[in-house]
């Protein structure tokens, strides 16, 4: 078989040549050995064929996330081995830190693996949150577009009847077009979220991802316990272990001289109590971790409070629509005011969804840092794949 090779060079030309020379029926080369992956991709696809929630996504991530594979390989674990574990038959939500990683007994050297698993799960969950948010937002977005279209349709009929003029029609037409554009954005965001999640989980492009709704928020938040969290988190445990090693290597020593000012004249390392540079660096890292946990918790609390506030506002918005309907019934208010009231409800619903997703984003981020869930999602309980 002869083939004309175009005159653009380098790698592309070489690949075309190879393609032309390769047998027509040869399967494409897999970048990752199929034996190493084993049944993990199949198991992941099975899980992904069901409505996705935070737990299913976490399981798929552990089985199939490309970002996790180097850490697995580094620690002598293959997805093929993971895929046959009985753990995946568990119907209750999997506690990654406890059930998968066994963090409470994990030796120091496995901190990197543990954190890699936790980070992969977090990344997958955040991608899933975006998908769930985009999916629900699209529905509201469509309602918003319908509201704008209804108002325009009525105004067009008024214009047609000779009862309204351009200054009334044009703003509604603009609003309807803007709502239609917004709907396009919402649909694009959904498609992008699907692509992103498929990529994070290494699922085939053709996979249709269905998602469960965003989980409900708990009625209240647990008490924050920063010292305990710091001690129990993989990174915190690692820092503590390193601090213990450093402390053991140093003989305690009291100060042997008084300090005199100016400080720039005090250059006697032997005169001060003993401390290593590593100890100081570990202390800094510990303080940084503590601050990070405090920030994470504060963000979670804020998202919780904002969601609560908005969720209390929504019934008022719904009541306002009903009130506007009574005004319309009595010819006391305009039908356009009624439609506006409903549209305001939709806008609030969108904001509520965003806050709901933000809350879980912070919750999953915190869980990844701590290695244990801070907020238990009681909705997750499903049949094993």
């Amino acid at each position, binding site marked *: 078989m002869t083939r004309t090779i175009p005159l653009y060079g380098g790698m592309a030309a070489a690949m075309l040549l190879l393609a032309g020379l390769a047998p027509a029926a040869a399967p494409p080369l897999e970048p990752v050995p199929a034996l190493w992956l084993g049944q993990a991709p199949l198991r992941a696809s099975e899980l992904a064929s069901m409505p996705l929630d935070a737990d299913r996504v976490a399981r798929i991530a552990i089985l199939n996330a490309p970002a996790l594979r180097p850490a697995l390989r580094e620690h002598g674990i293959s997805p093929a081995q993971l895929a046959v574990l009985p753990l995946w038959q568990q119907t209750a939500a999997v506690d990654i830190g406890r059930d998968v990683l066994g963090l409470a007994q994990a030796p120091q050297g496995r901190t990197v693996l543990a954190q890699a698993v936790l980070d992969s799960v977090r990344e997958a969950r955040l991608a899933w949150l975006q998908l769930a948010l985009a999916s629900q937002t699209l529905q509201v977005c469509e309602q918003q577009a319908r509201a704008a279209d209804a108002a325009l349709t009525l105004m067009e009929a008024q214009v047609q*009847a000779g009862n309204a003029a351009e200054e009334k029609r044009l703003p509604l037409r603009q609003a309807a077009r803007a709502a239609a554009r917004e709907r396009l954005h919402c649909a694009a965001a959904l498609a992008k979220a699907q692509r992103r999640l498929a990529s994070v989980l290494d699922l085939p492009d053709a996979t249709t991802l269905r998602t469960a709704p965003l989980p409900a928020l708990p009625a209240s938040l647990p008490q924050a316990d920063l010292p305990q969290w710091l001690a129990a988190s993989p990174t915190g445990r690692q820092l503590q272990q390193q601090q213990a090693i450093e402390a053991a290597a140093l003989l305690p020593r009291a100060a042997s001289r008084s300090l005199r000012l100016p400080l720039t004249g005090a250059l006697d390392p032997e005169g001060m109590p003993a401390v290593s540079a590593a100890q100081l660096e570990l202390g800094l890292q510990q303080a940084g971790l503590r601050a990070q946990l405090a920030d994470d918790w504060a963000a979670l609390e804020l998202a919780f409070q904002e969601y609560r506030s908005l969720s209390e506002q929504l019934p008022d918005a719904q009541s306002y629509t009903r009130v506007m309907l009574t005004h319309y019934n009595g010819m*006391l208010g305009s039908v356009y005011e009624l439609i506006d009231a*409903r549209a305001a409800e939709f806008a609030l619903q969108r904001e509520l969804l965003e806050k709901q997703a933000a809350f879980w984003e912070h919750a999953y981020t915190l869980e990844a840092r701590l290695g244990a869930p801070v907020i238990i999602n009681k909705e997750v309980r499903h049949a094993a794949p």
Partner: protein
Amino acid sequence: MQRRDFLGASAGALAGLGLLGIGREASAAAVSVANPLGVSGGRTPVTTLNTRTLGFRMNNGVKEYHLVAEPVEQEVAPGMTALFWGYNGSSPGPTIEAIEGDRVRIFVTNKLPEHTTIHWHGILLPAGMDGVGGLTQPQIKPGETYVYEFTLGKSGTFMYHPHADEMVQMAQGMMGMFIVHPKNPAERRVDRDYAFMLASYKIDPGTRRPDPSEMLDFNLWTFNSRTFPAIAPLVARTGERVRIRVANLTMTNHPVHVHGVDFRVTGTDGGWVPEAGQWPEVTTDVAVGQIRVIEFVAKAPGDWALHCHKSHHTMGPMGHGVPNMLGVDQAAATAKIEALLPGQHYMEMGSNGMADMQDMAAMAAMMPLPPNTLPMMTGEGPFGPIEMGGMFTLLKVRDAQKPGDYSDPGWYEHPPGTVARPADSKAFSGIPT
């Protein structure tokens, strides 16, 4: 204390003693059309629609009255109550009736949260009795009682209302009528003598208190602070001479139109109109702060409409910024709006006119109105919906109505062949149009 001669009606006497209390409810359903007491010597007492005449007592030849300015909760029409300010338990306050030449002493007790006064609109009296707060007298502070005393030098139709924080207090319903009968009972005698005040209010849907800041866009157009169908009808026997005294304390004029009669304007708040100055009318315009007295002989029996001829004033509350749907094909939009409101009843309105608003009122269970709000149009007549509201009532003339009987005779029974009826197409075929 001299001999107290209580001549007033019992309710009036109670009010005079200040025993009625504040905040009682005066139901529009309990329509007062009884012939009030208090006017003697063969004179026809005034019937004030939906309210009463104030009782009095004689004290050494002086007629003593007691007005109590106070908050009042009162029904405007079935389905709506308002928190008015009024006198002696109602808005308007009870009508004061006296006789030309009477010396009157009127005690005014202020049970309002702010000061007040009373101006005796149209009555000629000493300047210090004119009731303009700050100008002719100190303000009557809350809890205080002032006394006004003057002699009624001429007969006629007058009003009383505050002249203190007037914009607020009149917007809250503080007003009343003051009728002075001629000294000679035979002078200007009529068989029926009716009175009512035109008052407008802005009470937003779902609220109960009139908004005093409103100047033009009122939503309740009332006779004596009631709207149709809660306004009492005027009744007369065929052939009787009827007088109607109409006082206007709204912020606009009202062309008052009476069906079934032609009348003459016989008086204003300035006095009686000489016969040479009268001409026949069926509508007379009552401007702001004016009174018009009309008289006619009720010649034709029937149920005759009596209303303000400004058509928006014979409507219940309605939004004045609602879009015009007349002639609009709403079908496509309605389907879309219904989809936006799952579980709710949405119905397109106004494409063929607004008469279906009467049906909306009837379907209140399915398509509710805001609380404490009246429908835009209402009233069921013997032939169907009357589609009115606001300043609308009936003059009921009957052959069989006994003199002095003010009871509602019910719907008029038309003699056969005297009611408009559907026409056969053959009957009008060929008539030029």
